[in-house]
């Protein structure tokens, strides 16, 4: 049947929040939709997906999907899309979705709209909009094939809220792996250990640049604690080892769009801005009045950060 197949992103058997952005897309385009929960523990996770108005929640609960390997997962996603006659397959534009979606599209002979920030349905036609040129243009595209594959940006598709009801859960079989799967061996996952909120989901992000040097944690953590928030960093700060790599914000780091983004000693290179300019309110603290970050900051403070941050902390607490 025509409609949308939402591919859920699971992590250790739990539904990741990015999934609800993909569901939000499905609700926006309006056609009936199903959600596919696929992985180890997928049937348990499916229970968290039944209250969003999906026609059904499909599950492929398979221990061999425990560690994500595209060459295992893609054939099953493509087969379920084809068998169900779904004309749109949507995934979150996380590294999971961005890795998987193009392979699925190629299997289905479908056009792919990557990393979209808006969809417009006009008459029968659907147009997708996406940031390009490091976020300096929004490009519109149309897909010429009957089946569409789409990945949606979590920052522009706010998570769908449960709408009640209980979609039926239906277990479906998996398809055989791609032959190439025999040539991929998942070795291990090295997880950065951070007790702070996830960057992609935090309401406030405090980010620091290379200028913080070895005092990155010492200066910024109390501020982040005071704001109850996530820490981010520029690539230069990560490269120099002042901040762990998973904190990097920007084109090759995380894309964030919190209510408040505080850039501390960050110059505002184009690749950094690409990852944070969707933030609602941007504050920049930098001692150079000409720093490019001030061109996009709502509130700019020209001051030495080692003076400004402790003062800010005092003022917030006071």
């Amino acid at each position, binding site marked *: 049947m025509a409609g949308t197949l939402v591919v859920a992103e699971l992590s250790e058997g739990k539904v990741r929040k990015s999934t609800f952005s993909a569901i939000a897309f499905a609700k926006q385009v309006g056609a009936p939709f199903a959600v596919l929960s696929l992985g180890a523990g997928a049937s348990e996770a499916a229970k968290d997906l039944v209250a969003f108005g999906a026609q059904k929640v499909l599950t492929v609960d398979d221990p061999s999907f425990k560690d*994500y390997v595209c*060459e295992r997962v893609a054939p099953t996603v493509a087969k379920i899309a084809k068998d169900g006659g779904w004309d749109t397959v949507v995934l979150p534009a996380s*590294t*999971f979705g*961005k*890795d998987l*979606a*193009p*392979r699925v*599209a*190629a299997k289905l002979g479908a*056009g*792919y*709209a990557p*990393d979209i920030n808006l969809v417009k349905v006009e008459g029968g036609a659907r147009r997708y909009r996406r*940031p*390009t*040129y490091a*976020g*300096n*243009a929004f*490009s*519109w*595209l*149309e*897909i*010429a094939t009957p089946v569409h594959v789409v990945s949606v940006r979590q920052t522009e598709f706010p998570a769908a809220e449960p709408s009640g009801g209980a979609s039926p859960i239906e277990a479906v079989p998996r398809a055989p792996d791609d032959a*190439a799967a025999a*040539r*991929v*061996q*998942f*070795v*291990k*996952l*090295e*997880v*950065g250990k951070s007790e702070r909120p996830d*960057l992609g989901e935090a309401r*406030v992000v405090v980010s620091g640049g290379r200028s913080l040097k070895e005092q990155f944690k010492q200066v910024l953590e109390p501020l982040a604690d005071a*704001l109850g928030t996530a820490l981010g960093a520029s*690539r230069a700060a990560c*490269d120099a080892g002042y901040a762990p790599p*998973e904190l990097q914000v920007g084109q*090759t780091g*995380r894309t964030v769009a919190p209510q*408040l983004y505080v850039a501390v000693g960050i110059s505002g290179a184009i690749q950094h*801005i690409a990852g944070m*300019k969707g933030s*609602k*309110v941007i*504050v920049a603290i930098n001692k150079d009045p000409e720093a490019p970050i001030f061109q996009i900051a*709502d*509130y*700019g*403070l*020209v001051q030495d950060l080692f003076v400004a941050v402790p*003062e*800010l902390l005092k*003022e917030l607490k006071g």
Partner: protein
Amino acid sequence: MKILVAVKRVADPDNLNKIKLSAQGKVDTTGLEPKPSPYDDYALETALRLTENGTNTKARLGEVVVVTFAPKDAEQMLRAMLGTGADRAIRVDATDDALDGDLVARGLKGIVEKEKPDLVLLGYQQAESESNEVGQMLAEYLGWPQATFVGHIQSEDDKALLVGREIEGATAQVRVTLPAVVTVLDKIVKPKSVQSKHTPATHAYPEGVRFAALMAIMAAKKKPLAELKLADVAADATLKVKYGAAELPPKRAAGVKVKDVKELVAKLKTEAKVV
């Protein structure tokens, strides 16, 4: 090891905030210097590191072929890449308007079938369209394994690669048996990110990509640069995706400079209401 590197020429990635829109609503990059997409430059550097002993970068222990789908003036970029160490270059004649990621992937498949490389390296995404799709589609069309978002590669006897895939908050370590498709991030050009079997484990590269010596640029003039038609590598040139007009994202309203921390906090509390 024989490596094919796919490279895209783009408008100066450090100045993309200077793009304009044409009267037809197309992105206009006039005035921006054409350059290789940075991640493709890193893919080339990766290929060079995998096919040499880092302590003697003059001897190529393998073959590196660069390929682009672009108009004739992209030959300058290919020549420069031959100067930095690639052995051969291929240009498939095409304009951006006649391509989408799917067609580039199908075209690359045609080239892989002729060239039979052990590895195809690509940037994880190109700097203009940022589609992040060509490598994955190519892998599917070839029936090969794919490793995307790669920031670390260790070559095991040139038969398999142990790669680090950078995903949200973690690194996934995966072993892929060649032939395979790998797409790289900027982290791949850190001093110890690529460990080839030829280079002593203690060797550290300078950060970033290498530059061609003048002598090498002269010598590269004699290296082969082949030109192909799109029809030679992809039978069907139908596009699956069509880009229409673009728009400029909403400009952020000009912000204010506050005079001190007190004023900043006051504004955050009463004006922006975010703390």
